[in-house]
């Protein structure tokens, strides 16, 4: 039986005076991978911020239910603890905050929320090294400040490492393919694919069908002007790659 993990109903949201999400409805079941494709400025990243609870993104109407709970009432940290993860398009650099400290604090706050035992430094570092190895992240990199001076590939591998550690139920991957060369794209996609199971879901935001060859979606949505204008299977992405968005937007 399909159980909805995330249900968005008639969602409208704005930033300052600008309407960015307009009557969006979308249901994602556990175990599914949905892709969202759309032209620049369509509001794809805004959707990811609205869902993850960033300040300044104001929901004006509609509802979002996550694992049966009202997501919109939770502050950002609670959404994360409940199992929502946003892999950011441009991960923020935080000078002065060392990766290992950050990840330990992050993981322990999530474990605590779920009523699990927090990890001490030794067992945390063991786990961190293990997961980092799988993603070709060196021990040296773990001593660095969060995202500071990282290449595009390093940033995305670091986002993937966080997913592997925090084990979220629902991941939004906002252009996880941007800034990646072919090898890095494969490392990151393999990392993401290894995390897929029947209980978690992914929302993959991308411009390019290429990523969807690596992370195969169950459903593809075309997103324009703040809402979904067409939904189909993965052949929709191929169609889009050949003809561009213009046809679909006109169709609407």
């Amino acid at each position: 039986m399909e159980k909805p993990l995330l249900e968005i109903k008639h969602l409208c949201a704005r930033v300052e005076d600008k309407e960015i999400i307009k009557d969006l409805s979308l249901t994602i079941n556990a175990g599914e991978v949905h892709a969202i494709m759309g032209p620049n400025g369509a509001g794809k990243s805004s959707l990811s911020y609205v869902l993850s609870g960033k300040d300044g993104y104001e929901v004006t109407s509609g509802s979002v239910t996550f694992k049966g709970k009202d997501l919109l009432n939770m502050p950002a940290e609670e959404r994360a603890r409940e199992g929502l993860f946003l892999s950011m398009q441009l991960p923020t650099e935080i000078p002065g905050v060392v990766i290992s400290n950050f990840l330990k604090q992050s993981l322990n706050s999530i474990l605590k929320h779920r009523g699990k035992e927090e990890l001490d430094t030794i067992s945390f570092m063991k786990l961190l090294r293990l997961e980092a190895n799988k993603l070709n992240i060196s021990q040296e990199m773990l001593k660095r400040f969060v995202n500071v001076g990282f290449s595009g590939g390093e940033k995305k591998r670091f986002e993937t490492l966080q997913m592997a550690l925090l084990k979220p139920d629902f991941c939004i991957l906002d252009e996880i393919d941007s800034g990646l060369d072919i090898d890095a794209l494969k490392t990151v996609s393999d990392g993401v694919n290894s995390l897929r199971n029947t209980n978690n879901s992914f929302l993959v935001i991308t411009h390019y069908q290429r990523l969807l060859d690596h992370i195969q979606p169950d459903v593809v949505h075309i997103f324009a002007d703040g809402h979904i204008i067409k939904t189909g299977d993965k052949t929709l992405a191929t169609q889009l790659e050949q003809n561009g968005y213009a046809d679909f937007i006109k169709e609407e």
Partner: protein
Amino acid sequence: MVMQISLKKNKMQELPLVKDINLYLDEKPSVYALRQKARQALEKNKYPIKKIEAWKYTNIQPILSSNLKFEKEGHICTNECCHNHEKSSKIEIRFCNGKLHIEEYNLPKGLIIKSLPEVLYEGEYKQYLFNSFDIDKHPFAALNGIYLEQGICIYVEKNTKITDPIEIIYSQNKSNENQIHIHNLIILEKGASIEIYEKSSSNKVNTYLINTINEIYLKPDSCLHHYKKQNDSNNSYHIALNSIKIQSNASYKQYYLSKGAQISRQETAIDLQQSKASAEIYTAYTAQKNCLTDITTNINHLSENTYSNQYAKAILEAQSSAVFQGKIHIAPDAIKTEGHQLHKALYLNENADLNCKPELEIFADDVKCSHGASCGEIDKEQLFYLTSRGISKKDAINLLISAHLQEIISLIPNKDIQEEFSY
């Protein structure tokens, strides 16, 4: 002679914080004369008021009206106050509630440590006392001189290099409302090199004044790393004067972490006296709610090819005040010198007060100088990144606060002290 002095004593003015008491070694005329000289300086110049430029932004009225006592009983600490103080290879000089805790130090060759009364009595290092600054310009140093009794003299012989830091620990754990005055001399002979680590703290929320002077003399090619961690009670007052004379090719580096005290002032006055003398001052401070933190520096470039660099980072909590005054003076002969100064503040709340006053006085051509100041709030993108990973807003803000100071702390060459400075 004694008669005259006591006659004078009767005519003395009433001054806040000055009590008529007999101190250890008062019977020794030369010591008594030093104390009287200091008293006359304070009577003449009075305590600083807001009209005095150097104290314009730092209101010391709460200190003056506090009516703090001076505990004259016992000029040394003989209590079992440090029972949890384990024997270690480190040299730890302790002042318990302002009184030197007498213990035997395991001193390496070339290092001499004497208590201030020994210096006052024997006279060997007395020439260095009140010799590095003008007592008329430093009222709290004059107050310190009136009570001249507590302190330590660290003398390092030629070419002696000691890598383990010498710790000077001031612990103010009594509930008595006391004033504490400590006067240290640090003298490094040619080519000597040491590290000094001062720690001032209290385990209570008690009221006291700790007023320290460090007179530091760096002879040619010597090198001093001076660490200081100030974590005094939030009801206390911490006033410190560091006066440093630096000769050719000698270098001084100060790393100061400040987070306690209701009013604190760390004043550093440096004379770069000879060619290639250098001074670096790195400060990380948190101005807490309802507290005032004052960082004042005066760097005099008196000779050619001298170098100074000052970098301070601040956290300003709600309803806090901070004063950053940095003066770089470059004398006419001091060509090819470099002097830099930078202050970066992070506001946690709009309701904080920062007075930032850089001053450059340049009387020479061919010099490189810079100064800058910036202030900002917690970065919203960084805050979102951390909270979106499950870290509470409060913890995330704390992470970003320590990250702000981490840039200064990461400059500390001694890794153990670096760790102690990290929050």
